[in-house]
Structure formats: C-alpha cells, structure tokens
C-alpha cells in the first residue's frame, strides 16, 4: 500500500481524528453513547455510510456541477442513510428504536459532508473508500470508548450482561446514575481530548 493510501486510512485514527482534532460529528457521538450496543451499531452505520458515499461521490465527481454539489452530496448521503435505517428496522428493531432520530441525523453528520467535500471531490474511488473507512473508524473508537465507560459505570453492565459482581453491590457499591445523563458524555469527551492533547503537544491550541 502506498504511503498516501496508508495516511488516508490510518491518519484519522489518531493525529487527524474527526472528533478529537477536526471537531466533526459531535452531535450523534454524544447522544447514542449511554449503552455500548447502540454505540457499536451507530459506529458501524457511520463507517458504512461514509465509505459508500465517498465512493459514489468520487465516481461522480467529474460530472457534478460545482454550484449544486452540496445538494447532490446530501441526496446521495440521504439515500444511503435511508437504506441503513430500513435495514436496521428490519433486523435490529430494538436498537433502531433506541437510536431514534440519530440514524437519520447521519445525513447531517459533519464527518460525512466534510469528507465528501474535502476528499472524495478530489480523489479516486479506492483512496476515497479507504479514507471513508479510516474516518468512520476514527469516529467509531471514540464512540465505543465513551459507550463502554458510560455503560460500565452507569449501569454496571456491558452489552446488557452484568459484569460488576453482586458482592460489590452487597459491600455498598452503587451504580453512578450520573453517567447515564447527557452532560456526562460531554465531560468524558472533554477528558479524552485532554489526554489526547497532552500526548500530542503539537495539537495544543494557543488561546
């Protein structure tokens, strides 16, 4: 694999992470992370949609008139998201109920539009596909990490199975209900950003 393709695939996992560095796609990242299962499903849906729409736009890129490109990109994205949400409704109805409107909101996920605009409009289909997978994974690992922490400490379960033994509860341990509330997701992402930036000093901002 050439260095360029490798950068397209692996860059977004760390130094160029869509959530931690480019600040894209925050909305859905926070709302679906109360449970590990819904975070996983959301991460997979985003990976699929970003990769496929990247490929489609990159195939069409020479024939899209510049003035209406946003609408074309939105329509392609909306068609793919509709497909994903119908498949979820058919095969994983409970999860799709939990995700509620957030599956539909993948359309306006800034990662998607950002990648279509910044990468797929100027690169070939194969590179765009790898870029889509990379960015989807970069988004996914944050989502899964936050979901893991929130479910473990918030309800003592992982993927619905009890992992904190009953003896802990007998000894006085309590689930942290605060983890299930919305603001906790923001705090956790804030802390992940803190750790990530102290490891990568070149990303720190001068205020």
């Amino acid at each position: 694999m050439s260095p360029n393709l490798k950068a397209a695939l692996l860059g977004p996992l760390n130094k160029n992470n869509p959530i931690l560095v480019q600040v894209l796609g925050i909305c859905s990242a926070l709302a679906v992370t109360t449970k590990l299962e819904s975070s996983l499903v959301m991460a997979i849906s985003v990976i699929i949609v970003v990769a496929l729409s990247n490929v489609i736009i990159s195939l069409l890129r020479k024939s899209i008139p510049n003035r209406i490109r946003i609408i074309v990109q939105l329509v392609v994205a909306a068609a793919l998201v509709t497909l994903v949400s119908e498949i979820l409704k058919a095969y994983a109805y409970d999860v799709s109920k939990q995700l509620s409107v957030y599956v539909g909101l993948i359309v306006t996920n800034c990662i998607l539009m950002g990648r279509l605009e910044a990468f797929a409009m100027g690169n070939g289909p194969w590179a765009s596909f790898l870029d889509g997978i990379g960015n989807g994974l970069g988004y996914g690992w944050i989502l899964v990490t936050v979901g893991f922490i929130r479910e473990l400490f918030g309800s003592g379960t992982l993927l619905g199975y009890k992992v904190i033994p009953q003896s802990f509860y007998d000894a006085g341990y309590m689930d942290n209900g605060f983890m299930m509330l919305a603001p906790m997701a923001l705090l956790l992402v804030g802390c992940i950003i803190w750790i990530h930036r102290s490891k990568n000093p070149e990303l720190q901002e001068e205020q």
Partner: protein
Amino acid sequence: MEAISLIVRSIFVDNMIFAYFLGMCSYLAVSKNVKTALGLGIAVTVVLVLTVPLNFLLENYILKPGALGWLGDGFKDMDLSVFSLIIFIAVIASFTQLLEMVIERFSPSLYNSLGIFLPLIAVNCAILGASLFMQQRDFSNVGMATAYGFGSGIGWLLAIVGMAAIREKLEYSNVPKPLRGLGITFIMTALMAIGFMSFSGISI
C-alpha cells in the same frame, strides 16, 4: 396556551444543545465571539421557523401512510414515509440557499459577517433534528409545529450566545495547556447542561 408551554419547554427543558446535542459542530466552531454567535443563532431560528411547518405539511399531506387520501380513493393506501429523510433534507437545503440569496440582496453587511456559516446551516443537525422530532411527536396542527420550530431555535440561540460570552471571558483565565480551546469548551458545555437539567420536570 398550549403553544406557549410548548415554546417554553423546547427552549429550556428540551434544549437542542443541552438535552439532545444537536447542532454541536457549528456551536463549537462559531462560539468564539458574541456578535457572530448572535447572527448565526438568528439565522438558525429563521430557518427552523420556516422549515418545520413546511415539513409538517409535507409529512401530513404527502408522506404519511394514507396522507394522500385527498387525491382520491385510489391513493388511500400509499405510504411514502421512506422518502421523508430525502424530502426533509431537500427542503432544508433549498431554504438555506434561498435565505442566503435574500440576505445577500437586502443586507450585504450581515452576509459578509456570516460568510461561510450560512451555507453550513443546511448541514446543521439541529435543523434536520427538529424536523425529525416533529415527525416523531405527531403535532396536532401547523401552529404547534411552528411553535416547536421557534422554541428550538431560541433555545439554540441562547445556548450559543451564552457559550460565546463565557469563552470571551475564558481568554483571561489560566487553563491547563492540553485543555485549552476545545477541551475546556466541552467541559463548560457539560456544566451548562447540568445547569439546564434543573429545568426538567417543570410543567407549565
């Protein structure tokens, strides 16, 4: 009366940013000074007030199962709800385009100060989110849908202006280096959201 309570609820209790995290991207990017934050907040509110009722009409007279009944008996069984996402986003994108052209024509100074943020409203999750929530909640008439759009817009405006004001002050404080900028903004938003949670459970 019902409409007023809906507006108050959607401003404080169901706040777009603090309760649903919608529109976070532009919220984080534009909340650096109060003036642009206010301009963007007003633009978002205008787009919400226009698109939510329009999408409500489309939903109830075209997309819902059986909504095409007014065309004749043959259309009673049609169910076009699969297309709602595409239609909603198309309506929103074209309204943003329209608003951009109107602002450019009548107020070039506002147009220049908003710059690239105007077209970005089309991909602001808060706008599509409001339409999707409208679909989920099944409002009784257009008035309620408009009230919902207005309330959500004002809630978003309050949040972004408040954040911008805090960030302007934050420039003078000594934040740990890795936390500067993005990190501290997240934590501030979390604290503000905890504050807004005290409104939940209020019934008006």
